[in-house]
């Protein structure tokens, strides 16, 4: 076998004048792909309250609670999303039949206040006729 000594020398020497490979986060940020799975965003008006997301979530980050019926007969729901439990797999968005869950590119979710990890909203199952956005991937 051929033996050399210091065979990395030219490569190392060349790098003295090369731009660093390090990305100085948080001053520089890389461009994320549109497929990135970050914090969830909800279209409450589309949700039918089928609870598939709650059922499929591997980390119990999603809760949909029945709040009884409103005066006009619509069922009222409460959605609770725990960002601290969420592992951003995107299964809920995939399972969702009404496409009311969208994944955003937001990933800097650190908070010092624990309560901010729980995102709640109350809504009723009124489906607003809105043109459906086509999901980017099958």
């Amino acid at each position, binding site marked *: *076998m*051929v*033996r*050399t*000594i*210091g*065979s*990395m020398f030219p*490569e*190392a020497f060349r790098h003295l004048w090369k731009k660093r*490979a390090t990305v100085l986060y948080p001053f520089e940020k890389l461009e*994320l*792909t549109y*497929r*990135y*799975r970050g914090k969830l965003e909800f279209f409450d008006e589309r949700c039918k309250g089928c609870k598939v997301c709650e*059922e*499929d*979530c*591997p*980390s119990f980050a999603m809760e949909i609670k029945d709040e009884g019926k409103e005066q006009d007969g619509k069922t009222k729901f409460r959605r609770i999303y725990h960002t601290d439990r969420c*592992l*951003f*797999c*995107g*299964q809920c968005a*995939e399972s969702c039949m009404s496409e009311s869950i969208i994944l955003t590119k937001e990933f800097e979710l650190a908070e010092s206040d624990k309560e901010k990890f729980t995102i709640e909203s109350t809504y009723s199952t009124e489906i607003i006729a809105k043109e459906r956005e086509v999901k980017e*991937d*099958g």
Partner: protein
Amino acid sequence: MPKVTIPVGPQHPALKEPINFMVSVDGETIVDADMNLAYSHRGIEKLAESKTYLQNIYLVERICGICSHTHTTCFVQGVEELMGIEVPERGLYIRTLVAELERIHSHLLWTGVAGHEIGFDTLFMYTWRDRELALDLLEMITGNRVNYGINTIGGVRRNIKAGMKDQILKHIGKLEERVQYYTDMATTESTVLLRAEGVGHLPENEARKFCAVGPTARASNIPTDVRKEDPYAAYEELDFELITSDSCDILGRLIVRMQEMVESCKMARQLIENLPSGPIRAPMSREVPAGEVVSRYEAPRGECLYYVKSNGTFYPERLKVRASTYANWPAVVYSLKGYYIADIPLIIAAIDPCMSCTSRVAILDTKDGNERKVLDMDYLRTYGIKWYKEHGRGVRRR
């Protein structure tokens, strides 16, 4: 000369995760070694019994951060076999492509770690920088860099778009070039050869005896590779070589991994060029018929085995995971004997160890030494907060 027993681990700079080797040394030579595993056992097999099959995909994905695709594919394959689903061709190809990219990134990572263990930090920095190329590709295809989340029962979740092909081919070309450079560099550089050649010798019969898998076995001249022997996904249609080395030492494992990366690049190119059209996933139901299945997969570190037993409900009755590192431990203990203390990190690192477990339990010896108590994470947290509230100032003043 008296024998000294050195504890290597559970906390040791050479080990990235907790494991303990009690190494008996005579001077600088190792005479015996004993190991203690699972400092951080997560109980995933137990947990899996209480989750649905769909949820379990994401659970097993988190067994290992480096070969996350390995675990999901192995699991999903088993479940698909139980359900009798035929995965569309395109789905299999994408699955295989991600698997090969993962292999490249894992092997590059290993090369860097091995370099670090022998004090060659420049190699470490360069390989990890170039590993970004593979990670970028994975990010582009799957959306994430570590836990890809691309597998689902019946196929894959993300498609490869037409515009991606060029970039994938470009990156693979770059990767091939770099891999070739590292192969030339690492296999001729004298200081690397001094540390790798003849160290950690694991002869073929011993490797067979201890049931070594993956590159460890292949470097001991055992031509075993699940992709060849028991083809899954799209490997049957791919043209690649099974790399073995007869040197049986760490250099052999280095060469095997290096050349496997070249083969992986080749395979990725074939996959992207012959990507069939059609759907990427088949429809699936949530219920899995009763039955049992053994699923095998060639992880970057070697054979990975899943045993899934279903009882006809939403939840698996038993999920057995045998990750590849686990199979290689007896071989490591064997190959440690007779070498120097200085060789310990490299011999351990040579199998690319991955403990991949975390614990939620700590056993506390109370002061009298009789009572034992199980402390859970909540208790430890409140205890820590309390302690710092009481002692905080004193600590700072000192």
